[in-house]
């Protein structure tokens, strides 16, 4: 047999979770499509893990409804949900072999021993650990343990597969490889995956869509591209990638574009539904272009720091907008510290954002 998902959608309707006085998740609603990999991203304490644990059935919501597929599961305990989870610490049972670990869910679920063993072998093969079935978890490396945890969750063919910061205990290189493998598995098997992380580059790399959370509510939902190119507020702009946040003012809306004034310079940008008045401009570091000082007006500044990082150059430039952080891939004309420069902006990577609430 081959493993495949029975992928189902997940829906939250006005879900709140309070621990005593502390509200961890506040009236959150979203819909995850079947077969989609969605990431919950946010700083620690934003409620992303609590949200995941509510999908798993390890926490019960204080208010609101949760649906998996067509079924309401709001008060169903984890045991009775068709959901499995990969834990941050992997949570492999140390007294069982790899094969026993992987077969565990099948065996306690009443599958007969023989087919459980076959399915477990299939799962182990799927994560590339053939021949490791008789090892104990303590004899495996961190990455291998991670794979066992994934296999153990996979073989149950769950409607939804959950990952709770699965890569945070791996080193940087392995993290990169594992996230690609998880993404491949998800796409090949058509799984619905809910993934929690605080690492924005990990979220950008694996997700179909990202839910950015902050202070128990959703700040923005969108594809990685949407979030990076059109962040809704200063928080998202700063959390996904780097951004220089500069105060500005929309003077008027003209031809569907906002005319923005920042410190004497006027530019036109998509208005993002904003009205005339004070606003923030989020400028990506790579959207700032430095050139030799021309002296014919425009924004000018002085380079206060210049750092060579192999793949790119980083500058700090002091100008009338404040201290700007700049990334430059142009190695042909490196700028020296102390140099006077003219500053221009690219079309992409300069966005109007609201003040975060």
């Amino acid at each position: 047999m081959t493993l495949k998902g029975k992928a189902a959608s997940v829906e939250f309707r006005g879900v709140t979770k309070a621990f005593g006085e502390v509200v961890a998740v506040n009236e959150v609603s979203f819909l995850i499509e079947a077969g989609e990999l969605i990431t919950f991203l946010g700083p620690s304490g934003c409620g992303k893990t609590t949200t995941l644990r509510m999908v798993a059935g390890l926490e019960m919501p204080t208010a609101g409804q949760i649906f998996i597929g067509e079924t309401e599961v709001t008060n169903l305990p984890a045991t009775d949900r068709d959901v499995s989870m990969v834990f941050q610490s992997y949570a492999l049972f140390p007294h069982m072999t790899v094969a026993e670990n992987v077969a565990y869910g099948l065996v306690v679920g009443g599958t007969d021993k023989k087919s459980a063993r076959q399915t477990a072998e299939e799962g182990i093969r799927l994560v590339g650990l053939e021949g490791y079935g008789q090892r104990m978890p303590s004899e495996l490396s961190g990455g291998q343990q991670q794979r066992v945890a994934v296999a153990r969750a996979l073989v149950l063919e769950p409607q939804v597969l959950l990952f709770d910061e699965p890569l945070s205990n791996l080193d940087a290189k392995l993290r990169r490889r594992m996230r690609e493998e998880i993404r491949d598995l998800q796409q090949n098997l058509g799984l619905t995956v809910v993934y929690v992380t605080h690492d924005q580059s990990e979220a950008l790399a694996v997700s179909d869509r990202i839910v950015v959370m902050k202070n128990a509510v959703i700040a923005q939902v969108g594809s990685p591209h949407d979030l990076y190119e059109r962040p809704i507020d200063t928080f998202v702009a700063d959390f996904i990638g780097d951004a220089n946040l500069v105060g500005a003012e929309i003077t008027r809306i003209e031809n569907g574009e906002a005319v923005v004034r920042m410190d004497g310079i006027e530019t036109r940008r998509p208005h993002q539904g904003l009205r005339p008045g004070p606003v923030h401009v989020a400028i990506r570091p790579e959207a700032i272009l430095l050139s030799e000082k021309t002296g014919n007006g425009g924004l000018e500044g002085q380079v206060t720091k210049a750092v060579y990082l192999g793949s790119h150059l980083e500058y700090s430039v002091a100008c009338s907008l404040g201290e700007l952080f700049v990334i430059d891939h142009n190695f042909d004309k490196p700028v020296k510290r102390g140099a006077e420069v003219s500053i221009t902006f690219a079309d992409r990577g300069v966005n109007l954002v609201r003040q975060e609430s």
Partner: protein
Amino acid sequence: MTRTGFPAKKLLRVLTVLPIITPPFVISLAIILLFGRSGAVTTSIEFVTGFSPGRWIYGLPGVWFAQMLSFTPIAFLIMIGVVRGVSPAMEEASQTLRADRWKTFTTVTLPLIRPGLANAFLIGFIEGMADFGNPLVLGGDFEVLSTSIFYAIVGAQNDQARAAVLALVLLCFTLSAFFVQRKWLGRKSYTTVTGKGDSGIHPHLPRRLKWLVYSTALPWAALTFVIYAMIMFGGFVKLWGYDHSFTLMHYIEAFGIEWGPQGIIWSGAAWNSFSTTIMIAAISAPLTAGVGLLTAYVLVRQRFGGKDAFEFGTMLSFAIPGTVIGVSYILAFNVPPIELTGTGAILVLCFIFRNMPVGVRAGIASMSQIDRSLDESSLTLGANSFTTLRKVVLPLLRPAIVAALTFSFVRAMTAISAVIFLVSARYDMATSYIIGRVENGDYGLAISYSSTLILVMLSVILLVQYTVGERKIGRRGLAMDQKRPAMEASPV
């Protein structure tokens, strides 16, 4: 207990600490007050049914009962560490893998705590074998090894050779149990809580099991409570079972103070042994802690051949029953060149040897936490070795020092098995004095003395807690951890 939403958890915790500051035979005394021939329960049964249960409590059932009550807390302390050591993620993982509470418990939780259970069982075995106080008070004609050894030396037989042989037998038993325990634990330890962040909650126990746990723990707690109430109030009653009128008689007899022509006269019968006990405990506690911590320093910071063997040796003395030590001290120091029997020095020496492992354990635990680079940075900053030790190492060791001091003080006050062989008329210890009273049937005095001892130790512990304070908030958990291994194998 860590796994139920039980409301009185804290109270239960406190009850479990009591036995550490309770002299070992006090449980037996209380049992006698309850179930003895004129005990509260016995007389009420007699009153209701007209049937007299007699003296069934003396002998095997009584000893068994007393031992069970005495050692449950130790097992509890071991198990609480083990149960806490199981990461909640384990059980949550099992739940997300469709196992219900019962399956989770039988296939995950139970296997994970099994080594701990075995450990608790073995410790209970070692302690039970080695215990002396309870069988002596409750044994009647029923002799166990440790009491046989005592009678062989103290009784009419005065047969030191017989005592030595019996001591050897006892030693063999406890040592083999000790080795089994070491080996078992060396191989299997499933502590699954790691430094990695796991923010789970332990699921509650399956319902069937919950009731089983409650129905075991609650009666036990109730019984313990009754027993301590007995100890506290027993001292204020004229003659237990016959005349229950309130009296301070026993306290006056024990701790009476009179004004004579030459000033204060310490007329109470217990003052002599009481002051000796405090003195010996006060002398031996700092020595024990000092020797223990120095040993730990040597073990952690220096490298030398046979280090492992040395470390193992210091732990080994946990497994040697007090009676065996008592006998060996008598045999060793009764004759020239070193004649110490009957002096206070032999008591101090005995305590240092008995309680040093605690200091060593506590010292090793916290010294391994102190990175060598701390010493080195102090040295490179221009401090000499002595200043480094004083300004850097010692303050960091403070929890360990406190733990070792408190523990050795308390142990010195409550020890009985080794001490009873070593006391003399001049240097009598509180515990052996009480045992003497008990053998004469003078329960009132014995109980009032015991409760005084408990209160004294309690106030010492509280005082230490208070003066040292909780300055090191981050280290508090550590200090507890250091105490735990000590209790795991505390000598009797």
